Each structure stands twice: as C-alpha cells, then as structure tokens.
C-alpha cells in the first residue's frame, strides 16, 4: 500500500484553477522528488495535500484512509507533516519552543525529549541556539529549525517545500546529507526542490510538473539521464 496517494486532484485559488488533475503516489521508506519550474504548481499541490487549500475534485488517501475532507491540523496530528516554503517559523518564540510546537500532537508528545536530542544531533548548531528567538537566526539555521520542527512530529510522511531555497551551496550540501540520513533510517519523504540535480541524486522516484499537471514520472536516475526531459523540463 502506498503511504500517500493523490488521485486526480484539481485545485486553485478563488476562481483560478491551478492544478488540472494531478496524481501522485508515495512509497513507504522512499524519497520521492517533485520538481518543475517556478509556478508549475508544486506548492499548490502540497498545500492541497495538507488541506490548507480545498481540493476541488479528486481524492487524497493517507495510509489507506480518505483524508480529502479532514482539517489540516488533524492531518498533521496523524503524521502528515509539511515543512512549508518560506519556513514559517514562530519567529517570536525560541528555537526550543519551535521544536516543542512540532511535537504538539498527542502521538509524538511522549517522545518529545528524545526527539529533540535527535534533532540536536542532526543539527548541532541548533543546540547552541536553543534559547534564541527563531527570528534572529540566519537563513540556514532557520531552515534547520523548520526541518527539525517537522521531525519533532514523528512524521509518517515528511514533505519539504524548497529545502535549499536561498541557502549557500555549503549549507545545501549539509542539508541534503541530513536528508539522505533520514531516508536511510526509513523516513518516507516528499521533496520539492529547485535544485533538480541534487533532488534526483537523493530521490528514488520523481515527478516532473508543468502548468499544473504531471508531465513525466519515473525512477529518479532514469529521468535525470533522459536528455529530452532534461532539456524540456529540468533546465539542466
């Protein structure tokens, strides 16, 4: 059974339709990459999966259950976790409080201390900054808090929107290394990423979106080496 299955989703903002029948499937324990040029609808897709945007048509199935009409906080409580584009930290709260909020749901709550140590092991810099307000951190550190906060929820599925956006190449490498480690621990991941080459390198499976539709899907390595796709959709 797929960890998450999205079937024929249409959605948009107000009257404006953005997604035109998108279907995706996440296999448990795999890293699935979702790529496509700016404005192709990736963020809109993630927001619809989370229920922040209403699906006009289609179905979202999570662990075999139809969650298409569930409010987003309940999806999050169930372990469907999104690290949103632009980080969306609680900027007036400390790093530690941000991480605590990640473990708000009853399911991850009992393991909060242990998971926080895990996050600090993954991002040692956050341990030093734990009492600092999240809004005062550098961009890279903020992204670490955003990912760490997501991990505190003990995600059954971790979705990350633009992991490397605005980060230095050095930090991007570090974060991808952390991601690879998470994957090796068996974490199911959906990664939206501008840096297509890197996404494909860590990804098992990939979807290429354009103009609100899935134009291509396949094993990440095959897609990356397909000249036609590279030229048409990946711009690499």
């Amino acid at each position, binding site marked *: 059974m797929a960890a998450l299955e999205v079937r024929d989703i249409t959605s948009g903002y107000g009257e404006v339709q953005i997604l035109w029948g998108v279907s995706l499937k996440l296999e448990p324990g795999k890293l699935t990459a979702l790529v496509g040029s700016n404005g192709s609808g990736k963020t809109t897709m993630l927001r619809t999966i*989370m229920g*922040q945007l209403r699906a006009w048509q289609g179905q979202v199935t999570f662990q075999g259950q139809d969650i298409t009409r569930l*409010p*987003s*906080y*309940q999806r*999050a*409580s169930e372990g469907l*976790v*999104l690290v*949103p584009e632009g980080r*969306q*930290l*609680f*900027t*007036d*709260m400390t790093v530690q*409080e941000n991480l*605590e*909020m*990640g473990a*708000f*749901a009853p399911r991850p709550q009992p393991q909060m201390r242990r998971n926080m140590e895990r996050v600090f092991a993954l991002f040692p810099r956050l341990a030093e900054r734990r009492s600092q307000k999240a809004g005062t951190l550098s961009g890279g550190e903020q992204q670490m808090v955003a990912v760490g*906060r997501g991990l505190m*929820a003990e995600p059954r599925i971790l979705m990350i929107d633009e992991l490397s956006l605005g980060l230095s190449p050095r930090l991007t490498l570090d974060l991808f290394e952390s991601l690879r480690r998470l994957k090796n621990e068996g974490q199911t991941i959906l990664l939206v990423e501008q840096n297509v080459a890197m996404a494909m390198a860590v990804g098992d499976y990939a979807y290429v979106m354009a103009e609100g539709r899935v134009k291509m899907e396949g094993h990440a390595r095959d897609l990356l080496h397909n000249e036609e796709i590279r030229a048409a959709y990946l711009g690499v």
Partner: protein
Amino acid sequence: MPAQVLTSVVDGLMLGFVYGVAAMGMTLIWGVMRVINLSHGPLIALGMFGTYFLFTGLGLNPYLGLLLIAVVGLVAGFVIYGVAVHRVINAPYLSSLLATFAVSMMIIGVGTAALSTSPFNVDFSLGSVAAGPLTIPGTRLMAAFAAVLVAGLLYLFLYRTKPGKAIRAVSNNRGAAELMGIPSSRVLALSFGIGTMLAGLAGGLIATFFPFTILSGETYQLKSFVIGVLGGLGNPIGALVGGLVLGLLEGIIPAFMPVSWVPVIEFALFVLVLLIRPTGLLGGRA
C-alpha cells in the same frame, strides 16, 4: 513632595495595576486574533456586578468571588467567540469590530433594563494601611496585589504551559500552528475566553473601591486602548507596565492641574506614541 501628592501617586499606581489587568485582556485578544474587542468595557462592568451580587447577595468574600468571576468569564468568552466572533475571524477588521460592538450593545441594553444606570456600590472595606505619611485603603492594596498575581499567572501560563505556548504560536503564525497539529480555532476561543476572564477580574477588583453602573466599563475600555498602545498591542507584560504609567499619570496630574485634564493628557500621549512609536514603548506582540 507633600504627603497629599504622594498619597495620590501611590493611589494611582495601585489603580494602575488593575488597569493593567483590563488592558492585558484586550491586548491578548488583539495580539492573538487581530480583533479589537468593543465588548471589553461592558464585560468589565459585568465583572463589577459579579462582585456586587456575590458579595451583597450571597455574602461571599469579594476575593473568593473573583474565582467564580474568572470561571464564568472564561466560559462567557468561549460563548461570545463561538457565537459572534468566529464567523468573522477571517473577514476584514470592520466585521469583527461590528460583531463585538453588537455584543457590547446587547450587554448594555439588557444591563440597563435590568440594573438601571444608577450607581451601585459594594459595601466592603478592609480598613486602611498607614505607612509614614501615607494612608492606603486596604481594598486598593489587595487589588494591586491580586493584579500582580493575575499578571504573573498569565505570564506563567503563556510561557510555561502547553496551551499557553499554543496561544503564542497561533498568535505568531496561525497557518504554521495548524501545520503542527494545533487546532487554531479552539486556541482562538481559549484566548477570547482568557481575555474576557481578565476583563471580568479587572471589573471585579474595581468594584471593591469605586461605585459603578453598567456603563462604567467604557472608561476602562478606553484606558485599555491607551495602555495597549503604550505597552505595545499584543504584549501582556507591556500592558501591565502601560497600566502603571497611566495610573501614575492619574496620580500626578491632579496635583498640578484640574482633574478634567487627565483624559486630555492620556489621549495626547496615546496619539503621540502612535505617531512616534506605533509598536508601543515596549514593542508589540507576544
């Protein structure tokens, strides 16, 4: 400083603590959900009547009565939020302003019909405490003490407990809070409940030393605005400090000019702060 002025200053300060509690309620609601609660004043007045009926009717000690006022205030806040505020929470400011104004009119309408507008008085005294040239009424001292206690408890709640932190998270970024599994609508209801509770407590305390009518809350609502802006709207600690500043001014001003100048100076200060430091003297948001 002549003893009379000193007494007036200390009096003002004591009162300032209570203003702080009233303002905390208003500023908490603003900070969390960006709603200016125009029913804040009438809710303060209901707190005053709460003390009156519990004391005069049931003979309950006013400070014990406050516990009951707190619980009823919390529940009343949930109900007002659910009935009047939730449906307009994502609408433009004017809608929530009108919604809370409607609640205000209902309370004042029913209150005027049932309680008239002639003043009530809680006949309760704790004597007074003399310290050197100062004489402080016991009820004022107790009110200041209770206000500090309430402010301290609110701080502990917001910074040390899980629901308190959830309130701060929703206030900071509601969308992100939902992504953490925080049911933000319930958190908003809780915040409105606590804001209403604080209004009731402030009223309940004021009733132990001032006479009042169902219309008396309006003054304190206006003061809460001024204080909120002084201390930074959305900042409960700033509200307490702002309350003290206002109380102090009210103690000092009458020594130098007619009492009728007090509101003039308060609102001049209000406008000045808005012009120079719109985030408040202590900076905004919890």
